């Protein structure tokens, strides 16, 4: 491991930490969750192609 990898920029590193999802925000998170999967995308593509 290089010396650069052994040093931590604390300010930068701590910015990478994100707040944890709180219990009160579960409902909103569920609503906002993107549940699109590959099948949905394919169906959308096929739909546009037909149009």
């Amino acid at each position, binding site marked *: *491991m290089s010396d650069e*990898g*052994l*040093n*931590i920029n*604390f300010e930068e*590193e*701590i*910015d990478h*930490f994100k*707040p*944890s*999802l*709180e*219990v*009160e*925000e*579960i409902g909103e*998170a*569920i609503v906002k*969750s993107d*549940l*699109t*999967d*590959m*099948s*949905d995308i*394919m169906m959308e593509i096929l739909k546009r192609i037909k149009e």
Partner: protein
Amino acid sequence: MDQRNRIRLVSNSLYNAGLERAQRRDLTGAVQCLKKCLNLNKYHIDARNLLGLIYYEMGEVSEALVQWVISMNFQERDNRADYYLEQVQRKQDRLDQVSQNIKKYNQALFQAQNGSDDLAVLQLTRVVEANPRFVKAHLLLALLYISHEDYTKAGKSLYKVLKIDKNNPKASWYMSIVKTRTGKAEIERRKIKNAFSHRQMQDDDVIIPPSYKENTGWQSVLNIGAGLLLGAAVIFFLVMPASIKRLNNEHTQELLQYNEQINQKNEEIATLNDTIETYKSDTEEAEAQLDMLLNSNDSVLNQYAILVKMLQAYRSDNLTEAVSLYAGFDPSLFTDETVLSIANGIKQDIETNGYQTLEDLAYTMWSAGRMSEALNYYQTCLSIRPANPKVLFNMGMIYRSQGQTDQAIEMFTQIVTQYADSEQAEKAREQLAQLVPDNQQAAVPGQSILNQGQPAEEGQDSSAGTAETGAQTESEPAASAETESQPEEPESQPEEQETQE
């Protein structure tokens, strides 16, 4: 339709990969696989439930609840997510506790991002105590410890994270930094190097322990010295006490034997000493007996000699010599009856016929100035005839002439008191008057002049001077005695004396 099947196959494959990684506790990798799986097929219930379970394992309870709720929306029946929600969401106390813990973490993150590191550390410490599986809290706490250069505590937190999520990239990175700072990285590097540096051993190879070091010259000397010291210590502390104890026991036994022998010898010496004392006393007794037999007048041999001499004197009709021998004659010492009868016969004859001769002999001796012999003969006369004032008077006179005033006074007093009617009584009073001039009691019959007390002693002392004068003229006793009183001549007939008695 073929495309859909292919998508399902791929999503299943990703689910399997995620499951496999989850089973190996590579939770981060499993999350990635499961997310890809769900991106391909959002209806993959198992993948979503597993993703929620992994979130829950990593302390992300809210994320887990999101996945389980969505899973339940897609499939309400026969869904494992229902059980998970039952365990977490529908128990209000537990959910409140989880909610509070997440809020504390967010608060600690806010404090850390705004420079309040110490408060953040305190808050995160409480968070991980309440939920030890909160990976994000552990990572943030480890980062704060590393920033404070407290690598030990950081390492502990990272160790817990890696136990939950083996390949957590952030934890691995932080751990490598901690190991580098604490020097453990170098140790692990050496171990790995040694592990991969092994080769197949040959027959000539010698296994040398890591602790083995080539000794230099002075090290050898030191080792030898240390060995000698160790050996000496072993001898001193282990061998010597046993030897000393053994020798002490032997010496004690020897001493006991010697003491016993000494005691026996002492007893023998004591016995021999007693025997010697006994022999000495026996010897002395025998010597005394022998001396008595040989030299004493009272000895039997002497008595035999006297008897023989007396018989010889009788044969030669020398009664005087026989009488002179009578003074030391004691027939009672003879044990032989024949000799005893002869001795008693001689004794009886002398007492009957030889008394006057004895008295004449005493007078002769007195006249010749041989006072002691005269006294001896007079004493013999008294033993034959005790009531004899004439003999007593003569003895008194002899005593007086010799200066033996006390004996003279005793003789005269005996005459005055016991034979007051005898013709020697008056003479005895005169003698007493001269010897004790101040004593008027001398004339009193029945009282001894010696019992008169101090005045008599003074008179006695005064007469002592006279006695001394007499003693000074002892060379001429007869003349001196005659100047004071003429000796009483013995009576020609002893029978008259007996009549007087």
